């Protein structure tokens, strides 16, 4: 033990990890690529809003019934701009949002390995567990920011193009606009939670390779595969275990009273994915030879 004390240094502040996290967040969100992804996500509600506006310009009957296809709530947008938030989330959750998350998560470790910066972070020494944890938290932060970008952009477009006011839930009851806004925020949080499983999966893939591009492509490929598998009726036995299976359950927040079953199942499944792939990523990353 006496030898260990020969290397005395300034004791790391317990807040040091937050310094590393802040550096990680700043680095991630200053990337041109991150901003481009967020820009694309912000554009989706604009497209949906403008399309709906043009479609209904001639005073077409609103509330044709939701069976006509398109994302949930789309038929109600002309009555209340707030529905554009729900529609935009339903439109981006199957692909745009998780794809963006796949890019950020896949690049998290592999991108640093690719550019060689990983070795300098590790000899700093950031510590492998802390670095991985920081990467995961940053990816989750990106999930939240990306979802909020979609929601806020949708709210702005909705307010600009359509009337706002009290709204009707799926169950047919009336709720106030403020209550509706609260539910929209809750939805954004649930959508963020829906992405945490994929984020862990992407981070695990990211620890397997030194190529950021390969990790991103693999993660997005897995996402597409899972989304396809979830559509094949013969595979209904495995579908409840696919991370995307309960994603659209966030619409249940618009019922009165809220129907929690699928929402809870979704969050449980995400927690399971985060635990399994988070552990796998940790096991891999802490034991790996850093040769890049």
């Amino acid at each position, binding site marked *: 033990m006496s030898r260990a004390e020969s290397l005395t240094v*300034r*004791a790391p502040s317990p807040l040091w990890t937050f310094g590393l996290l*802040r*550096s990680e967040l700043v680095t991630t969100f200053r990337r041109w690529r991150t901003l481009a992804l967020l820009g694309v996500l912000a554009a989706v509600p604009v497209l949906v809003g403008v399309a709906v506006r043009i479609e209904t310009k001639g005073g077409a009957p609103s509330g044709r019934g939701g069976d006509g296809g398109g994302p949930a709530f789309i038929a109600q947008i002309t009555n209340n701009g707030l529905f554009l938030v729900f529609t935009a989330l339903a439109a981006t959750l199957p692909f745009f949002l998780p794809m963006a998350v796949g890019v950020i998560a896949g690049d998290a470790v592999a991108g640093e390995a690719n550019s060689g910066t990983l*070795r300098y*972070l590790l000899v*700093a020494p*950031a510590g492998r567990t802390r670095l991985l944890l920081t990467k995961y938290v940053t990816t989750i932060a990106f999930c939240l920011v990306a979802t909020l970008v979609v929601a806020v952009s949708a709210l702005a477009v909705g307010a600009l193009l359509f009337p706002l006011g009290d709204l009707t839930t799926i169950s047919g009851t009336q709720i106030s606009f403020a209550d509706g806004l609260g539910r929209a925020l809750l939805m954004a949080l649930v959508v963020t939670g829906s992405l945490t499983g994929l984020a862990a999966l992407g981070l695990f893939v990211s620890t397997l390779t030194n190529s950021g591009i390969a990790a991103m492509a693999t993660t997005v490929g897995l996402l597409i595969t899972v989304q396809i598998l979830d559509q094949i009726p013969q595979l209904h036995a495995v579908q409840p275990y696919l991370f995307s299976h309960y994603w659209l359950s966030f619409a249940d927040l618009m019922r009165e009273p809220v129907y929690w079953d699928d929402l809870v199942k979704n969050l449980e499944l995400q927690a399971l994915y985060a635990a399994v792939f988070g552990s796998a990523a940790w096991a891999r990353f802490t034991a790996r030879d850093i*040769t890049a």
Partner: protein
Amino acid sequence: MDEASATEPDPAAHGAGDGPAAGDAGDGVIRTRALTKRYRGGQLAVDGLDLTVPAGSVFGFLGPNGSGKTTTIRMLMGLIEPTSGTARVLGHPMPRASRAVLPHVGALIEGPALYGFLSGRDNLLRYDAADPTADPGTRRVRVAAALDRVGLTAAAGKKAKAYSLGMKQRLGLAAALLQPRRLLVLDEPTNGLDPQGMREIRSLVRELASDGTTVFLSSHLLDEIEQVCTHAAVMARGRLIVQGPVSELAAGAHGRLVVTTPDTGEAVRVLKEQGVAGVTADEDRVTGEPPERDLAEVNAALVTAGVRVRGFGVERASLEDAFVALTGEGFDVAG
């Protein structure tokens, strides 16, 4: 301030960090025993390496490409787990004691790696944030000092992707100098620098060494090693061929007695008489193995025999001669 703020008393009397590296003198700042790395696929990259880097030395680490230098450095820095054998850095086992050891070590491994979309200054701020012992309160000051030390202050605000190779190399060095270090591991530090930059780095290395920092330097430029290093080790095919003080290594290849004279024939005869072995004449130069006896007498004998001597002396063997003698091959110039 970092080291001085150490609060715990130090029973091991290793100097609590002041008087850098003082406590490691007997042990070697870097000490490996039978250090071996076999990669998956069976390739033996490092084979039973016993390396000792004395405290306060400027240690040159030589070897052709693919000889295992980089694998060794990565094992010392805790990036790669050895297959067998042990590595101790600053007296602590690696990679187990990474968190205690690495804050005292500045490293430049296989060239600099930077975030191209960040400015030079922001790159350093990021690396400093990754060091748990770095004080965030002094971060900006230390980053500015490190930039100044490598002459990058003027370019600190430029995006790193716009940097030339030499500027990137300087920024990598600055990252290694963010904190006072007890050991600097510099892999090819002058790569990509112009002659003026090389001179600056060499004087920086000397300056750091005179402050008591041990410098572990790998380079493909033998004359550079010869100019700045006090000790050196040579690796080839994963094995350590030789290590020791540079003066001894070069002496191992023997110097040569060189006589410059227009009367070469007569000089050859006299030198042979005087017990000089392996005498060869080339234009006006006559060279041979220096004899045991006093060279002044050899010179007197030449003059007595009427040989007109223009120059007389022993040419020290260069490290390159020693290297070729040791490895039996030329020195691959690293890319």
